[in-house]
C-alpha cells in the first residue's frame, strides 16, 4: 500500500535525470536489473531506495555478483525457507551505476496465514541448536572457500600446448581454453553457493534482534538504539580475530628485539620480510606470520564489497604498518589487546543493570527470554561477516585476478583488474571470445573489450560525482521485511528526510545523517581516508571520515576525536569499536566521503546521528 509521499517515478527518472556523462551505463548490468517496459506496472507501484549500506559507490560490473547472489538468497530465506509471514523479498534495480532496492509489499492475507504456520514450525530450531549448526555452517563454508581457492586457472593461453601436456601421459583431454571457461563458471557457482550459505541464519538473526529490540523499547521507551545493540553485541567475534592475531604477532616480535627493530622501520613490507629472513628470530617470526595469514589476513581493507579495496593478504603493507604501530605502543608500555573479558563483563553488567530497573517479575522473565535467545543467535550476524564478506570474497577477488591476468596476457584487456569491468554474465562471453581467438589460429581479431573497459571506468568515475535520488516511486505506508527495518533503517523519519533531500548538490550539503552509532559530540578537522593505506596520514585529534571501517582500523580509532563512515549500521564494526574507545561516531551516512573534504571543520553528533559541516576548507 502506498502512502501519499511520492518520489520520482523510476522510469521517468532513468529517462531524464541520469547525467549524459554516464551514457552507456545500462550496458554494464544484466538487463533484468534495469527498469523497463516488461515489468513497468509492477515497478511503478513499488518503492525503491538507494542501498547506501552495501553499495554506496558506483557498482563495478563484476562486483555486482554479490548483490545478484544476495537478492536471490536473502529473499528466498524470507519467503520460501523460513517463511516470515508478511515479509517478501528485496528486489534490485540499477540506476546510473547505483543500486536501488525494494522491500516488496506483503503478500495476500491467505499467504501470510499459510506462512505463519510454516514459520512457527521452522523458526526455532536454529536458536535451539545454534552451536552445532554454527559449526556445521562454518565447516561447509570453509570447504567451499577451499574449493574456490583450488579452482585451477591456467597461467596463460600458450602459443602451443607444452609437449608434456600432450604426451605421453596424462593428457587431460582438454586444453587451457576449456580450463579458463570452467574456472570462471566454477568460481561463479561457488560464489552463488557461498551467498546461499550467507543467509542460512541471518534473516532469523535479524528477527531475533528486532524481537529483543521491541521488548527493550516496551520496557524502556526512550532507550537509544545504540544501548540495545551494546547489550547484544559480542566481544569475541571472528571479525576481531585478525586484529587479535596482529597483537599476538606484535607481542612475539617485541620479544625479539632484532625483529622488532626491522618491523619498526619505515619501509615496505616486502623489504622488511627480506631482512627478517636473514636471521633466526626473524625467520621464526615470519613462520608464525605465515601460519596465521590463512585465514586471518583474508580481511578486506574496506567493506569486502568492492574489488579495489584489497585485503591484507595482498596489501601486506597495511598489517605491517599496524604491527609497527603496535610495537611502538608496546615500547611505551601500553596495552594493545582488546580486553575481551572486560568487554564481555561490561556487557553483562549493562544487561543486569537495565534488568534491575524492571519492576515486575514477569516482565523481567520475558526480558531475559528474549535476550538470551537473541544473544545466542546474534553471534551469527557477527561471525558470518568475516567468513563471507572478507575471507570468501578475498579468495574470489584473487581468483578473478588470476583469470583476468590470463586474459590480459592474451591482450583482450589491459590489466588483470579490467575483468571487474564486465558483469558476471559478460565475462563468459569475454572468455569465449578470447579462447575462440586463441583456438582459431594466428591474429584472429577479438571484440574491443579493452576499449569497453576504459569507457566503463570513465562512466564509473562520472557516476561517483553524481548524487542520485535517495528513493524512487511511491513511499510505502508499511514495511515488514526485517532487513529493511534493521539494516537499512527505513523509518518514517528516514523517508521524510529523503523527500527533503532529493535534489541537493553534494557541495551544497551542510548536514548529513546516519546512524547514531556511538554517543557524544565532537568538533574538529576532518580527514577523509578513502583507503586503508592512507591511515598514516591521520593526525591525532582529527575526525576520521572513511568509507567503512572494520576492526583493522582500531589502532586509528584510538587517536581520533570522532569517526564518520559511509557504510555500516549500529552494529557495524566501526560502531562497536567506536563505542569501545568512547569515540563519538556516525555510521552509514552513505555520502560522508564524497561530501566532506579533508580540512573541513565538522561537528559530529553521535547522539543524534548527524554530521554538520561548519566550515568548508579553502
Amino acid at each position: 500500500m502506498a502512502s501519499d509521499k511520492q518520489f520520482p517515478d523510476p522510469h521517468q527518472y532513468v529517462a531524464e535525470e541520469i547525467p549524459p556523462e554516464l551514457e552507456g551505463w545500462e550496458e554494464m548490468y544484466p538487463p533484468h536489473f534495469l527498469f523497463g517496459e516488461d515489468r513497468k506496472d509492477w515497478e511503478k507501484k513499488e518503492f525503491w531506495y538507494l542501498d547506501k549500506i552495501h553499495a554506496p559507490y558506483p557498482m563495478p560490473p563484476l562486483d555486482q555478483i554479490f548483490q545478484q547472489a544476495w537478492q536471490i538468497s536473502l529473499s528466498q530465506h524470507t519467503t520460501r525457507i523460513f517463511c516470515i509471514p508478511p515479509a517478501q523479498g528485496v528486489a534490485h534495480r540499477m540506476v546510473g551505476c547505483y543500486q536501488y532496492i525494494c522491500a516488496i509489499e506483503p503478500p495476500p492475507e491467505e499467504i501470510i496465514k499459510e506462512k505463519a504456520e510454516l514459520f512457527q514450525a521452522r523458526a526455532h530450531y536454529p536458536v535451539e541448536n545454534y552451536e552445532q549448526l554454527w559449526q556445521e555452517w562454518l565447516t561447509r563454508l570453509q570447504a567451499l572457500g577451499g574449493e574456490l581457492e583450488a579452482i585451477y586457472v591456467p597461467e596463460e593461453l600458450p602459443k602451443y600446448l607444452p609437449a608434456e601436456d600432450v604426451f605421453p601421459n596424462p593428457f587431460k583431454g582438454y586444453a587451457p581454453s576449456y580450463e579458463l571457461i570452467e574456472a570462471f563458471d566454477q568460481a561463479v557457482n561457488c560464489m552463488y553457493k557461498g551467498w546461499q550459505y550467507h543467509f542460512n541464519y541471518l534473516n532469523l538473526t535479524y528477527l531475533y534482534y528486532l524481537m529483543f529490540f521491541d521488548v527493550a523499547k516496551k520496557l524502556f521507551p526512550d532507550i537509544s538504539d545504540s544501548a540495545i545493540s551494546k547489550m547484544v553485541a559480542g566481544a569475541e567475534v571472528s571479525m576481531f580475530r585478525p586484529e587479535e592475531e596482529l597483537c599476538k604477532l606484535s607481542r612475539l616480535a617485541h620479544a625479539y628485539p632484532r625483529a622488532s627493530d626491522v618491523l619498526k622501520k619505515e619501509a615496505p613490507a616486502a623489504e622488511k620480510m627480506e631482512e627478517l629472513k636473514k636471521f633466526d628470530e626473524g625467520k621464526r617470526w615470519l613462520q608464525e606470520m605465515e601460519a596465521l595469514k590463512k585465514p586471518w589476513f583474508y580481511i578486506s581493507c574496506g567493506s569486502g564489497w568492492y574489488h579495489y579495496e584489497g585485503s591484507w593478504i595482498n596489501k601486506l603493507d597495511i598489517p605491517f604498518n599496524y604491527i609497527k604501530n603496535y610495537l611502538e605502543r608496546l615500547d611505551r608500555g601500553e596495552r594493545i589487546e582488546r580486553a575481551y573479558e572486560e568487554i564481555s563483563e561490561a556487557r553483562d553488567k549493562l544487561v543486569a543493570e537495565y534488568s534491575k530497573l524492571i519492576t515486575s517479575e514477569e516482565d523481567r522473565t520475558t526480558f531475559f527470554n528474549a535476550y538470551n535467545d537473541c544473544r545466542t543467535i546474534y553471534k551469527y550476524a557477527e561471525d558470518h561477516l568475516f567468513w563471507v564478506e572478507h575471507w570468501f570474497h578475498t579468495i574470489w577477488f584473487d581468483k578473478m585476478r588470476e583469470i583476468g591476468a590470463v586474459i590480459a596476457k592474451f591482450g583482450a584487456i589491459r590489466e588483470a583488474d579490467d575483468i571487474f569491468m564486465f558483469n558476471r554474465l559478460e565475462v563468459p562471453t569475454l572468455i569465449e571470445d578470447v579462447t575462440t581467438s586463441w583456438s582459431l589460429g594466428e591474429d584472429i581479431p577479438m571484440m574491443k573489450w579493452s576499449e569497453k573497459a576504459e569507457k566503463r571506468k570513465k562512466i564509473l568515475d562520472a557516476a561517483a560525482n553524481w548524487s542520485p535520488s535517495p528513493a524512487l516511486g511511491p513511499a510505502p505506508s508499511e514495511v515488514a521485511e526485517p532487513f529493511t527495518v534493521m539494516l537499512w533503517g527505513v523509518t518514517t523519519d528516514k523517508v521524510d528526510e529523503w523527500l527533503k533531500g532529493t535534489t541537493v548538490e553534494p557541495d551544497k550539503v551542510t548536514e548529513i545523517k546516519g546512524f547514531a552509532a556511538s554517543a557524544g559530540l565532537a568538533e574538529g578537522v576532518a580527514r577523509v581516508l578513502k583507503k586503508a593505506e592512507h591511515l598514516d596520514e591521520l593526525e591525532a585529534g582529527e575526525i576520521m571520515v572513511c568509507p567503512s571501517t572494520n576492526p583493522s582500523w582500531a589502532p586509528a580509532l584510538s587517536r581520533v576525536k570522532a569517526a564518520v563512515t559511509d557504510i555500516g549500521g549500529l552494529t557495524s564494526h566501526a560502531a562497536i569499536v567506536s563505542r569501545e574507545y568512547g569515540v563519538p561516531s556516525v555510521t552509514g551516512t552513505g555520502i560522508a566521503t564524497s561530501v566532506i573534504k579533508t580540512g573541513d571543520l565538522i561537528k559530529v553528533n553521535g547522539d543524534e546521528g548527524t554530521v554538520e559541516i561548519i566550515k568548508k576548507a579553502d
Partner: protein
Amino acid sequence: MIIMDYVLDYSEINKSFLNRVGGKNANLGEMINKGIRIPPGFAVTTDSYLLFLDRAGIGKEIFKLLAGIDLSKNVMLNDISAQVREMIAAYSVPAEVEEEVLKRYELLCEKCGDKETPVAVRSSATAEDLPTASFAGQQDTYLWVRGKEEVIDAVRRCWASLFTSRAISYRANNNFPHDKVLISVGVQKMVNARSAGVLFTINPSTGDPSQVIIEGSWGLGEAVVSGNVNPDYFMVDKILKDIHCRKIACKTIECLPCSEGRGVEEIDIDPERQTVPCLEDKEIIELVTISRLIEDHYGYPQDIEWAIEKDLPFPENIFILQNRPETVWSQKKRENLLEKKSSRDLLLERATKIIRL
C-alpha cells in the same frame, strides 16, 4: 523533660525527623549523611513554630478561622488567609528560637567568611514531598537573604506562608487537616548559581526508568521552576551515561541576585549566551551520577533540584538543593508492560508485525 531542639544542623537530621523538620529538610539531612553535596546550613524545627504559636496564643483562633472557610468562595479564602498571616506577623519570634537561629547563622557566616552571608530561607512543611503529594511550591522561599534581622524575618514569613490561599486550598483539596501540617524552615548558604534546574530520575513523560531528564537554564533555578524560561533539555541514559538527546533552548531571561546582593531579579540574557548550553557534558554526567545515588538510596524515582555554583571548580560546584519522590509514576501501580511470554511468542509477534510508515 523533653529536650526541644529549635534548630538542627543538617548532619543531625535524617528521614525519621520528618515531623520535626518537614519533608524538604529531612531529605536534605539524608543527602548530607549520604555524602551528597548540599549547601551548608541548618533547619529551624517545627518545635520552634509550635513554640511560636504557643507563645503568641493564636493557634486555636487560626484553626477555627480556617475551619470556617468555604473553598468555593475565593474572596473569603483570600480574606482569611490574609487575616491569619497578619496575626503571625504581629508577634515576634520567641527569644530562645531567635538566639539559636542566630547562633547557627553566625557560625555559618564564620565558616563562609562573610558576616552577612547570603542564605536561602525555605519552607519545609511536614506534609510535603510525600510520594502521594508533592506540595511543590506551596510555601514560600526567600533567596539572597542577608543579615541577622532579615534571616529571622524570613523564618517568620515562611511560617506565615503555611497559610497562603494556595497552601490552604491545596491542603483542603488533598484532605490534609490544617492543624496536622506543621512547618519547619531551612536556612542554607545561597548558591551563587551559574546554572540551575531540575532533574528527574525517570522520564516523567514516558515513565522510562532507564532515563534521566535534566532541565536547566542560566542563573537560579526559579526561572525554570516557575516556567518563565524555556530550559535546555537533556535526556541521559542512566546506565550508559550517554547524553542521547539534547534540546538547547533559547533562554532569554535569568534569575540573578539584585545588584546590592539582597533578593533576586529577572534579567535579560545577552543574545550570544541565549543558545549556549547551560551545562557542560561532564557536569551533566556528574549530575546523573549523583542522582543515581539518591535514587538508589530511596529506592524510587526522584525529582531533584540542582545548581552549579559560579565560583567553584568542577565537581565541587555541583549542589543538590532539594529532592523529593517523583509523584506521577511512583503513584501508578507498575503493571506488567509485557505479558509473560516465551521467546517463541515474542518472535512470532515480531515476525508478523508490519511497521506503518
